[in-house]
Structure formats: C-alpha cells, structure tokens
C-alpha cells in the first residue's frame, strides 16, 4: 500500500487552526492526477536528494553540494529565538520536496473559491492565465513567449534558462558564483534550498550588454517555475544591465505549504541589476526566502519587493557592497491582512569605501495582520565616506493591527553619513470624512488613502504591476472597513 501522500494526508487531517488567529489554514479542495513515473514521496532524506539529482541527470559535484547541504539543514535549529514561533508549525516530514510534471495536483474550476475568482476578475487577469494560477491546469502555455525572448537576448550573448540546464550546459560560467553569494549555511532555509533546489532562473549577461526588456519568470511558466525551492542566479558582467521580474499580483494556488527560494545576484564592475518581485502566495504558504546581491566597484543592485500574500513571509533582500562606490537599494512594500505575518526588511553590508545604500520600506497592517520590519545596516571602522538612508513607515488600519520595527544599525569609524527615519500612523478619520464628503464610500476612501501611502514606491514598479497592485489593495481594503 502506498504511503499517504502530502495531499491525502492534509485532506484527511482534522481542521488545523492557527491558534493565534483562529483561521482554518488547510488548503482548499482539489483532486489528484493520474499515475506517473517517479515519486520522491514525502519527507526529506538522502534518498530524496539522490532522487532529485538523478532525475535531473546532474554532475557529481552538484549531488555532493546537495548532500552537504542536507546535513547542514538537519544540524541547524529553527531560528525561533528571534523569529516567530509559527515556524514550529511547519511539518518537514509531510512536505513533498520534488514533484515532476504529471504529479502536480489540481482542482476543477468549480472547486476554486469564489474570492479567488473575484480577485482574478478585479485584477483583469487574462482568462488563459486564470486556470493556471488557480491550479486548474498544470501548465500555462507560455513556451511561445519564452522562446521568443530567449532568441532575442541570445543574439546578444545572454544566457537565460533554468538551474538544471544552466549548471549542466554552462558550468564554467555559473559554478564560479553558485553558492558564493549565499553560502549553504547562511540559514536553515538556504541550507534546505541548497539540498532540494529545482527550477528558478539562471541568467548571464555579457560585458556591456544592456538588456532592453525586463526578463520575466512569467515567460517561463511551467509547474516547476512556480515551484517550492527555486534557485536563481543572475550574473551581470562589467558595464552590463538587466531587469528581472518575478511573481504576480494574482493569488497563486499551491498545495505546498513551504516555499523556500534562494536568489543570488552578482553585479560586476559598473553593472546594474534591478530585481522586482510581487508576491501573492495563497494564505496557507510559508514563504521563507534568502535574497542577496554582491555589488562590485561602481555597480548597482536594486531590489523592489512587494509582499501581499502568504501566511508567513520572511525575506530580507540584501546587498554586499564589495567594490568602491557600489550602490545598493531596497524598496519594500508589505501588506499583512488577517492571519498573515509579513516579516520583511533589508540588509546592507558595506565592505568598501564610498559605498551608498538606501532602504525604503512601507508596510500596511489590516485587521489582525502583523507586519515586521527588520533592517541591518553595517559599516565597519576601516571604511571611509559611506552613506546610508533608511526610511520605514508603517500604517495601521484597524485597532488590532500590529507592526514592529527592529532596525539594527552598526556604524563605526568617521566620515560616514547614516540616516534613519521611521513612522507609524493610522489613517486619520478627518481624512476619511473629507473624502467621503466628496462622494467616495468609506471603503473607497480607505483604499485611496492606502494607495497614497505607498504611491511613491508603487510608481517604481513597471506599469502593469503598479496598476494591478492598486487594484489588489482596493480588494484587500474592502474587507477591512466596517
């Protein structure tokens, strides 16, 4: 008799309630697909890792990398001494660490919850994409769009493919930096990712090439790319530039409750990388991501990060300013609604003279949502002429909404300029009345006020995202009033 799969186990479990919020966190209804060739089973062991590596036909060094990572993962404790104890609710034994194409569970359109359908409607998601996002179809046929882009940029010498293909076809480019920006042992979840990673985007941009259009993970939609343990590595050579976008505002169905990605960026001398993420995972997902970039002399790395979904997101995009005059920037928007905890922030590690870093983080807590800002800014004694500007603003919508701020700023030596500003505010009643007096309902007034709060950050997203973002916020705010 085959052991219970994750899906069946979850479906027959008694209703699990988040004790602090009282909300049923089990995944929605779905059906299981037909028999398939390989099954990694649930739970994590050396066998799982070996299985993944063999299915991908990986070179031995990668298998070794994975095995070492597994050992590191097993030896590290959960970081609950500083992070939320909710992490203890993750059952690592129930998780399936690798699912191939035919194994992805799905559900019928009728089974998709109404509020999800409503969100698609409000965000104007194309019909074709709705079925994929809702988990009704396992694949979205974007191959055409993807191969088109791939061909265009290939002419410039750009490499754009997934982790498996990249490490197999171009190890001479990628192996050099793989696991160097984020070492396996950085934290328990980067170790986990290093053991079971799959999918993700590996990109190399040759010197001087400025890639005109943003490269998108969306172009490469297939079941794996929205996978649980994506691994992304972007290397931009001297003087080159690229923008990468991932995620979408539409809610993404997932039976997997743990998503733990690792993103490494390398900007060589004078290079520029802009990495844009919009995250709206389903409300049962733990989204624990490690993202870091290495900026060499006069290079620039900018993270634009928006977190709306998931049950718990822990993510602190960082930049190590390794070369003189390197620049790092993090723009972060977080929205936490009932049953959600957005624990986000940034890390700026200055390791060269005249480096500058900027952090602007805005968070909104609605209902019983909780949002936390954690920032690290580190400027050691021997450096000269470094600058940091941090601004973190929190907006509380309801009386039981919660926000916390933990800035950790370490500056040593002289000739540095560091500035930190923080604010917490409520939407003022006078402001709402003023808007109502012009004919806007209370809900519309709240939405407008919240959109105004994040406006200067939202404008930095590509237009299609910022339009969707505004609609998404309108939707989130509707529930909060009255």
């Amino acid at each position, binding site marked *: 008799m085959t052991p219970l799969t994750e899906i069946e186990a979850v479906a027959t479990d008694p209703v699990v309630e988040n004790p602090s919020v009282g909300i049923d966190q089990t995944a929605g209804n779905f059906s299981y697909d037909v028999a398939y060739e390989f099954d990694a089973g649930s739970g994590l062991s050396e066998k799982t890792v070996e299985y993944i590596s063999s299915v991908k036909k990986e070179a031995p060094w990668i298998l070794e990398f994975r095995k070492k990572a597994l050992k590191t993962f097993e030896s590290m404790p959960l970081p609950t001494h500083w992070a939320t104890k909710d992490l203890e609710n993750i059952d690592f034994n129930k998780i399936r660490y690798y699912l191939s194409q035919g194994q992805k569970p799905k559900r019928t359109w009728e089974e998709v919850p109404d509020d999800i359908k409503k969100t698609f409607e409000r965000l104007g998601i194309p019909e074709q994409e709705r079925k994929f996002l809702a988990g009704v179809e396992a694949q979205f046929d974007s191959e055409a769009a993807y191969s088109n882009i791939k061909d265009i940029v290939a002419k410039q010498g750009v490499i754009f493919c997934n982790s498996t293909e990249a490490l197999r076809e171009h190890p001479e480019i990628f192996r050099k930096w793989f696991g160097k920006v984020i070492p396996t042992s950085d934290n328990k979840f980067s170790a986990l990712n290093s053991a079971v990673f799959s999918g993700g985007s590996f990109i190399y941009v040759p010197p001087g090439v400025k890639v005109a259009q943003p490269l998108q993970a969306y172009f490469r939609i297939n079941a794996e790319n929205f996978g649980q343990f994506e691994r992304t590595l972007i290397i931009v050579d001297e003087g080159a530039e690229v923008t990468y976008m991932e995620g979408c505002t539409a809610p993404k169905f997932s039976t997997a409750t743990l998503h733990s990605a690792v993103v490494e960026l390398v900007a060589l001398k004078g290079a520029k990388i802009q990495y844009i993420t919009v995250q709206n995972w389903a409300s049962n997902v733990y989204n624990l991501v490690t993202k870091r970039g290495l900026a060499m002399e006069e290079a620039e790395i900018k993270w634009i990060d928006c977190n709306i979904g998931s049950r718990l997101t822990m993510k602190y995009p960082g930049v190590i300013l390794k070369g003189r005059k390197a620049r790092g920037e993090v723009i972060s928007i977080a929205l936490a609604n009932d049953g959600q905890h957005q624990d986000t922030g940034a890390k700026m590690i200055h390791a060269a003279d005249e480096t500058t870093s900027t952090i602007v983080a805005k968070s909104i807590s609605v209902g019983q949502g909780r949002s936390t800002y954690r920032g690290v800014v580190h400027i050691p004694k021997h450096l000269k002429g470094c600058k940091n500007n941090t601004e973190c603003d929190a907006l509380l919508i309801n009386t039981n909404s919660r926000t916390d701020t933990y800035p950790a700023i370490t500056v040593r030596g002289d000739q540095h300029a560091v500035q930190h500003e923080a604010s917490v505010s409520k939407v003022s009643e006078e402001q709402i009345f003023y808007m109502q007096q*012009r004919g806007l309902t209370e809900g519309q007034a709240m939405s407008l006020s919240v959109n105004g709060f994040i406006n200067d950050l939202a404008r930095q997203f590509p237009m299609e995202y910022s339009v969707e973002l505004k609609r998404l916020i309108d939707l989130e705010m509707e529930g909060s009033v009255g």
Partner: protein
Amino acid sequence: MNTLEIKDLHVSIGDKEIVKGLSLIIKTGEVHAIMGPNGTGKSTLSKAIAGHPDYTITSGDVLIDGKSILEMEPDERARAGVFLAFQYPSEIPGVTIANFLRAAQQARLAEGEELDATAYYKRLYSKMDMLKIDRKFTSRSVNEGFSGGEKKRCEILQMAMLEPIFSLMDETDSGLDIDALRIVADGVNAQRGEKLGVLLITHYQRLLDYIVPDFVHVMWDGRIVKSGDKSLALELEARGYDWVKQELAAASA
C-alpha cells in the same frame, strides 16, 4: 428648484449641545450668509449637515426636497448634492488632485460606466485656469504643503468640478488676502444660479462685498436670532455682535 430644510436642529458633541434648535430653509438660486461670533455653532451646523461622525443630531431634521437625509452616510449625502467647503481641508499624501477628483466623479457614475478621461481633463484645466491655479497642481498631492489660500482655492476647484446642489461654505474667507479672496469669490459667483443653493458661513462682512448674499442670518448661542437681507451684514459690521446680544437681552426682559 430644490430645497434644503433644516428643521429645529439640535446638535451635540459628546454631552455638550452646540446647536440648540436651528431652523432654516435654503432654496437653490439663493445665497444665505450665516454670521456670528466664535463658538456659536456655525461650523458645527455645516459639519452636522454633511454627516461628520463626531457630531450627534439629538433632535430635529434635515431634509432635501422633503426627504430626510439624516439616515444617509456622508458619501450618500455628497452624491445627493451636498458639498462642504472645509475650513481646514485635510491633506491626502500620495493622492494627486487629478486622481482624487477623478475618483470622486467616477463615484457618481452608474455601475459599469467609465469616466471619459479626455473630457474630464479638459474640464479640470478650464476650471483651474478660471481659478488661477497652476496646471502643474494637478500632479501635487491634495492639500499637501499648500498655503491657506491654495487650500481654499482647491476647495472651490472641487466645488466647480463636482457641481453640487447645495454648497455649505465654512469660513471660506479665513486666511485669505484680498487677491485670493477675489479669486475665490469669482469662482463661487461663476457657479451661482438657479441650480445652486449656498450657505456661506463667515465672521466678516468683507466676503459679502464680493459674494453678495440674498439673506443674512445671525447665529448666537446655537440658534439663528436675527435674519435680514444684505444690509444686516453692514449693520453688524458697524455695530458689532454686542448690539445683537443687547437686543436679545432687551427682548427677553
């Protein structure tokens, strides 16, 4: 023609009664001025009619064309044609004037109807030109960093765009110099006509030189104690509010 009727209205903030039985009928085509010293309840009256949550109407009624509006939310009253030009307009950071007014106009359309953007902007610019508001202001956040005069002109701009049936103007002249006052008055006068009823709340006679009222009422201790035409305002200016108080004292003696 439409009618706004305030019927023996009593308004409190918390336990304190501010408006103590005020009655007034305003018809479209008419401009009524309410004058009176500080603290007599003038602002309270206008806010209560608009539906401000801090104020409780303990008795009496406010009706538009015979129908009570007291059960209506502030935004419903607004869409029914009530406009309040605030004494202290709020700032709305991150929301541009253009977007704000657009949202306000869109809110008045039927479900599914879209606002014609080109027509909207054309109207907006023509009103801004009339009010001598720099067109660049459309992309500034509503009232953010505005001077007193700019805020008041922005209120009149909104009134011009939203075309209310009844406009309650709360101390529209406060904080304005002569030039700004003229511009604001011109803006109001441009809308004056059969389709608009105005309640002008002011301390000073000066505004009434520019926006000439049809009726003047004096408010004292939460009630209207004297009514007349525009000459009443001139008399008040000459003799002060004490004159009215003395008259009242004598009458009740």
